[in-house]
């Protein structure tokens, strides 16, 4: 039964309603004459506080409030991939005019579209939640499995024959006392993680094609990582790069409280960029969720949950999903704003005391798992963090760093000098280095792990030498240390730096990453010998080969390119 009451107070986007006894915590409601969407965030006697997901201008005490009887849920069905949604999974592409009007409602997928369904199971067996019944080809890249919804179990009495069906048509029936019909469309409450069989240890890298990450601070499939950085340090570009090149099957990109034009950029580039593995436009594996900074704050809080639930759904089909959230700080700020309007007692910097646990349970939804149907799938989460004043000691950053297993700290000084991606190689961290080193050994080169250590070693030594140089000038250093500074410079310029906008440089497959590192380290070895033979560092630096090795990241595309340049280095 639907609860109906009325507004007694409006304060920003928080509305108090009276006469709503029976309404449930987190229940969705419609507020006011316009039917604005909201969610119950506190129940007190027969009153309730509602967080409205839309602007509340003009709302008056006395207007109606109606409970919808269910919590905030997403629609799970073929037709999601390739779409752009708002924070409540309302499609943005079907709205008339150029603005989003209040009280807007629309189905998340086209319910009139017919999909060609292929059954994969025959009736007469016992099934449980997660079991695959059949599939449709959602895009050229995504075979969308229709699964028995979690919680449903019994005898499979009917499976539809191959043919055209709409998402709400019945494609199977399960009998367990009563008959339950299954369509291609399910609903799932966004704040509840979708069930799995068990968690597994991640051991495969999520290849992103971004050198500083894959080679030095890698992420595993099913892992969680954060990218903290002040404005302009390159969070968004890095996330866009991941969305474009990562070897995940599905990408869910959540633009949470950031710029509208950044979503347009994705919409513009995704149909034109090809997935490095399949060669198909990455639009065919992407889902976008936009709650841009000018959209109502409350839906920002919901948007990350909508995103993660979609990622979990595709994981359940046995795929690797990647969920990117730019920026989780805006989500935390939305929590703070709602908490403030509810007059909760604030903890640090006005954030509610449950901030840490919310962040923890969000990143907990990442994982490499065995699905209910016995497949392997994963959800990887990468969240940007936008610390005010670039201060990494603020609450959202500190709590996030406690819960993620890798973090790439962006350094404003690197960004100022246009060293992008501005990942600080001294203070960034990944706990996946160890578990993934076997993969590199098997798939790329046995010497990779040693080279990785050598390279980091040069960079660490550089760091301590730089402190001397800063005070006394480079002239005080002996020649071999000056050469080490040059080697470090080659690593920075020729490996760590990576332009997102250069046709070749923007994506480097693992093997080429190895080549580039090999070229620099071998050049360094050769140079050391030349130094012993009497050459000066100045001579080495001004040799054309020095520049050619640094510029290899723009030019080396194949084994042949590598071998040709390697030959020159060996002869140097």
């Amino acid at each position, binding site marked *: 039964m639907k609860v109906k009451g009325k507004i007694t107070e409006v304060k920003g986007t928080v509305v108090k309603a009276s006469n709503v006894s029976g309404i449930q915590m987190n229940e969705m409601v419609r507020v006011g004459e316009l039917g604005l969407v909201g969610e119950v965030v506190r129940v007190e006697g027969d009153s309730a506080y509602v967080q409205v997901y839309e602007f509340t201008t003009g709302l*008056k005490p006395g207007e109606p409030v109606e409970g919808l009887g269910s919590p905030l849920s997403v629609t799970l069905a073929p037709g999601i991939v390739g779409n*752009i949604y708002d924070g409540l999974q309302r499609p943005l592409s079907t709205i008339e005019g150029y603005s989003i009007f209040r009280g807007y409602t629309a189905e998340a997928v086209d319910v009139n579209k017919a999909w060609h369904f292929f059954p994969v199971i025959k009736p007469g067996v016992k099934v449980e939640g997660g079991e695959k019944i059949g599939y449709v080809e959602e895009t050229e890249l995504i075979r969308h499995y229709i699964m028995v919804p979690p919680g449903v179990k019994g005898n499979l009495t009917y499976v539809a024959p191959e043919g055209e069906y709409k998402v709400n048509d019945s494609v199977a029936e399960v009998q367990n006392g009563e008959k339950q019909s299954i369509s291609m469309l399910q609903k799932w409450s966004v704040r509840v993680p979708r069930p799995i069989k068990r968690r597994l240890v991640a051991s495969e890298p999520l290849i992103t094609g971004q050198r500083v990450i894959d080679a030095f601070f890698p992420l595993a499939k099913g892992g969680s990582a954060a990218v903290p950085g002040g404005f302009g340090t390159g969070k968004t570009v890095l996330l866009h790069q991941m969305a474009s090149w990562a070897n995940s099957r599905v990408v869910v990109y959540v633009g949470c*409280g950031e710029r509208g034009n950044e979503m347009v950029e994705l919409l513009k580039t995704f149909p034109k960029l090809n997935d490095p593995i399949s060669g198909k436009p990455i639009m065919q594996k992407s889902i976008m969720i936009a709650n841009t900074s000018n959209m109502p704050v409350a839906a920002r809080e919901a948007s990350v949950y909508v995103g993660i639930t979609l990622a979990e759904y595709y994981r359940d089909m046995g795929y690797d999903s990647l969920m990117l959230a730019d920026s989780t700080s805006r989500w935390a700020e939305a929590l703070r704003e709602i908490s403030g309007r509810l007059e909760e007692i604030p903890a640090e910097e006005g954030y509610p005391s449950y901030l840490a646990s919310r962040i923890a349970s969000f990143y907990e939804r990442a994982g490499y798992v065995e699905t209910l149907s016995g497949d392997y799938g994963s959800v990887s989460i990468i969240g940007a963090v936008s610390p005010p004043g*670039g201060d990494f000691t603020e609450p959202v950053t500190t709590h996030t760093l406690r819960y993620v297993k890798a973090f790439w700290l962006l350094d404003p000084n690197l960004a100022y000098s*246009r060293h992008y991606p501005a990942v600080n190689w001294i203070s960034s961290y990944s706990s996946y280095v160890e578990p993934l080193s076997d993969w590199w050994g098997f798939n790329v080169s046995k010497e990779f792990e040693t080279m990785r250590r050598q390279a980091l070693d040069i960079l660490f030594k550089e760091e301590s030498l730089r402190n001397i140089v800063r005070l006394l000038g480079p002239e005080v250093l002996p020649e071999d240390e000056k050469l080490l500074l040059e080697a470090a410079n080659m690593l920075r310029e020729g490996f760590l730096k990576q332009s997102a906008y250069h046709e070749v440089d923007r994506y480097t497959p693992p093997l080429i990453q190895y080549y580039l590192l090999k070229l620099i380290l071998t050049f360094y070895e050769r140079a050391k010998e030349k130094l012993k033979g009497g050459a000066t560092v100045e001579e080495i630096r001004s040799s054309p080969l020095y520049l050619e090795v640094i510029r290899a990241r*723009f030019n080396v595309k194949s084994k042949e390119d590598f071998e040709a340049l390697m030959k020159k280095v060996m002869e140097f």
Partner: protein
Amino acid sequence: MSGSITFSSVQSIRGSLMVIRTNGKLGYEELVEIELENGEKRLGRSLQVSEDIAVVEVFEGTQGLSPRDVKVRFLGRPLELPVSNELLGRIFDGLGRPIDGMPEPVGVEELDINGKILNPYKREYPDEFIQTGVSVIDGMLSMVRGQKLPIFSGSGLPHDMLAAQIARQATIAKGEEFAVVFAAIGVPADTAMFFRRELEESGALKRSVLFLNLAEDPAVERIVTPRVALTAAEYLAFEEGYHVLAILTDMTNYGEALREISMMREEVPSRRGYPGYLYTDLATIFERSGRITGRKGSLTQLPILSMPADDITHPIPDLTAYITEGQIVLSKDLYHKGVYPPVNVLMSLSRLMKDGVGEGKTRADHKELSDQLYNSYSKAMDVRSLAEIVGEEGIPESSKKYLQFADAFENKFMKQDPYENRDIDTTLNLAWDVLSILPESAWTNISEKSKKVYLSVVQKRSI
């Protein structure tokens, strides 16, 4: 509308806020008109409404108001601005009422000053280069139509001069001129006068609309001024098809007004007393820019803000830069060295530059040149600070070139007259000139191709 007019009484007054009795008749963010005994009228807007009372902010301030002596009328609508192209050439106060002695313009529409939520799906990606004629901007911080790019400045720095130069010189490839919407937010009258004069002298005044909330005007009104101005700007851009340049100065005054009201409401502050929603609030202003699919015009924002105590981590510049598409940071040091425009290029950024420049837009070598200038200038800054510590003798011969490069970059490339208008070719050729001070082995960002095509041209020119 008039049907909903109700009279009400005031319960209490505190700062610029009033608590009034409403009997539930006032909607959230709706307007009230407050009438004093002497007939004076003021406007207010509700911040919180309940069944019997509402909290209202009074735009013109509460000075001289006494609960017993005023009448409050509910207008039954949010704050609106009547719009039409009759706005052009006119001057209004910070709430959008004419102050140029002419009658209220006839509006074809009344628009809510909060604007509409632009659907990101309907945005068009901004990628049309704007030539400002200022080398450091065109060369390294290129602006595009529809971008929001603020100037971060400090007291005594020539931000007004630079904004005026951009407004005067900004041409777009096709030569279409900008319509200018100017919003003064708590600035001294002479700043507003300066812009007015500049617009007048360049003949742009008839294509301009001015909204003035001056330093002596009430602070609460500042919350509204940028929104009123952007309502006009959006109308001119997206309904009338103008390319609009909106100059908002000074957004720091806006932020301070917001803090003042938040404190009066006893809200929990976050950083430095500013409300937790400062980011969201600023975003509802700065995101009102861009281009829209299928519409002719564009709305480019050039907000100006002074950094309190020159601190870029202060919440107002910090959160602004998190929202805008880059920032132009002015430097006291350079200004004292006699460099105009004194732009701290390393701290500055134009996020939309990449799609607005290059072959077919400016020149094929533009991106590489700009990357190289950043790269080399940042190296030069390291050398310069080292030279300050160890003396020029202490730095290697090969690094001394960087000192020369930095001087040439600042004094030849960046420095120019406020009335000098350089085209993009001139700017890029100058870049090659200063870059040529460094040996080619330092050109890590320059491709062989660019060297071949452009360097020879430059070298020939300089012979």
